[in-house]
């Protein structure tokens, strides 16, 4: 057998293995995407029937009366997620910046462990924490307690992604900033963080998407409510909790509301994600 023969045989084998692997990769990708497609299809299929303006503008009606909507839950979720993000995002980003830019500080290892531990704590436990620090002392379930629970869930996600994204900025970029006669804080904020804003925002988006769907920590913090939001110190309704309540109810129109609520929640997260991508994708090019 000549060298050519050996190579020809190897090449034939390589081509086959190559095709096989490519096929497997394609299959794996398909399996990964499939659940998303099914969930989207099924949720929209079941939810779309109940979608109308009154879903967003009306309160739930008592059993027996027809119509009604989940307007209070939609608004409540916006309030809880907005408030939770307003608290959690700045703290998360600040922690991430600290972890990346001051990694040699004595405080950094402590903060890193705290963030990692927090990221691993089940969200229901964080709900218990919010319950202990806000619900118990204030003698009542409240939107504030729910928002606090969501903020605490958000912090480690945002902090970790911010840290990872900033660590990708090579040190010589920082030195170049210092070499231009810029003070360190400006180098960090205006060059390193600003230059990584799309990555940081992606992390924020993922975190916000996650807390939009949290129900467990809200169960004993924000609780639920049949009324429109009545301030931060009163219980407040939210889509996930409302979906949970209605989905297990025996009444058909409530189950329908739960389906439509699920659809609205999923689409909200999806659209927010796509929108963010479109904006950032356009900037990056």
């Amino acid at each position: 057998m000549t060298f050519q023969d050996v190579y020809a045989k190897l090449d034939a084998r390589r081509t086959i293995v190559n095709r096989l692997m490519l096929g497997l990769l394609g299959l794996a990708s398909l399996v990964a995407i499939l659940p998303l497609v099914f969930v989207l299809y099924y949720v929209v299929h079941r939810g779309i029937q109940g979608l109308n303006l009154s879903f967003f503008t009306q309160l739930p009606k008592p059993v027996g009366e027809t119509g009604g909507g989940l307007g209070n839950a939609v608004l409540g979720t916006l309030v809880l997620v907005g408030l939770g993000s307003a608290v959690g995002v700045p703290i998360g980003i600040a922690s991430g910046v600290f972890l990346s830019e001051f990694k040699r500080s004595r405080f950094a290892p402590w903060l890193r462990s705290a963030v990692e531990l927090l990221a691993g704590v089940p969200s229901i436990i964080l709900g218990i924490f919010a319950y202990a620090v806000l619900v118990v002392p204030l003698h009542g379930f409240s939107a504030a307690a729910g928002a606090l629970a969501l903020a605490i869930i958000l912090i480690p996600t945002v902090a970790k992604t911010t840290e990872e994204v900033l660590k990708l900025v090579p040190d010589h970029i920082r030195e170049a900033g210092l070499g231009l006669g810029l003070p360190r804080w400006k180098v960090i904020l205006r060059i390193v963080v600003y230059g990584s804003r799309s990555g940081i925002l992606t992390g924020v988006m993922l975190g916000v998407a996650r807390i939009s769907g949290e129900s467990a920590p809200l169960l004993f913090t924000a609780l639920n409510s049949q009324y429109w939001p009545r301030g931060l110190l009163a219980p407040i309704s939210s889509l996930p909790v409302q979906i949970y309540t209605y989905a297990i109810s025996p009444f058909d129109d409530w189950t329908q509301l739960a389906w439509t609520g699920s659809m609205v929640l999923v689409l909200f997260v999806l659209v927010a994600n796509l929108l963010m991508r479109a904006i950032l994708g356009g900037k990056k090019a």
Partner: protein
Amino acid sequence: MTPATNAAKPPIPEPILSAKDVNAYFNAFHAVRGVSLDVEPNSVTALIGPSGCGKSTFLRTLNRLHEEIPGARFEGEVTLEGENIYGRGMDPVQVRRKIGMVFQKPNPFPSLSIYENVVVGLTLAGVKDRRLLDETAERALKHSALWDEVKDKLRAPGTSLSGGQQQRLCIARALAVKPPVILMDEPTSALDPISTARIEELLGELKKEVTVVIVTHNMQQAARCSDRTAFFFMGELVEYDRSTRLFTNPQDKRTEQYITGRFG
């Protein structure tokens, strides 16, 4: 301690930058040992020597970037136009505005446009006057011989340029804050021969307005582009002379061995 050949020859009457008995440490490691070196205004001074001999470290003591490394320590004195940059009350941020730096790897700031990269030293210092910024950008880009290539795409990201163009962008960025001195640490070592030639040409132009201190591993480059050359060896300044003389008639045995390629 200091070898006789260490002093500048001929002496420089009014150096713009002057290092006196500079010692630099990384924790206990003594990287730069008793280096004294005067830099002539409007000249190009090359620092050469084998890898690890302390060229970069010495260069970074000249704009107080050395102290940004954890565990780094400095002893000695560096004067810029007669003023000790390590003096009491001297702000390293102010020092670095007067002594700019260009690094080995081109490092335009991420997600800033070409234009924003050039004027970032001014905008982040609070300059808002558009006319002034536009003029500065054009001047700096012309000065770094990049203007013709980028004048129609100033809004494109700085990172979209080729490596050689990026390095000239970084030179423009350093020039924009009008420092009297610019330090360059192997600015062409990551570039192709054509980009390298362009930057070498540029050095001759630059020195009409600024003083350049450049570290290079390329001895032809040092011989071609610099007025004076300093040869470093194991943390010490071994020989410092006019480049024409140092490369043709070195006084120290080690210099001779290095430039003839017998070590390093």
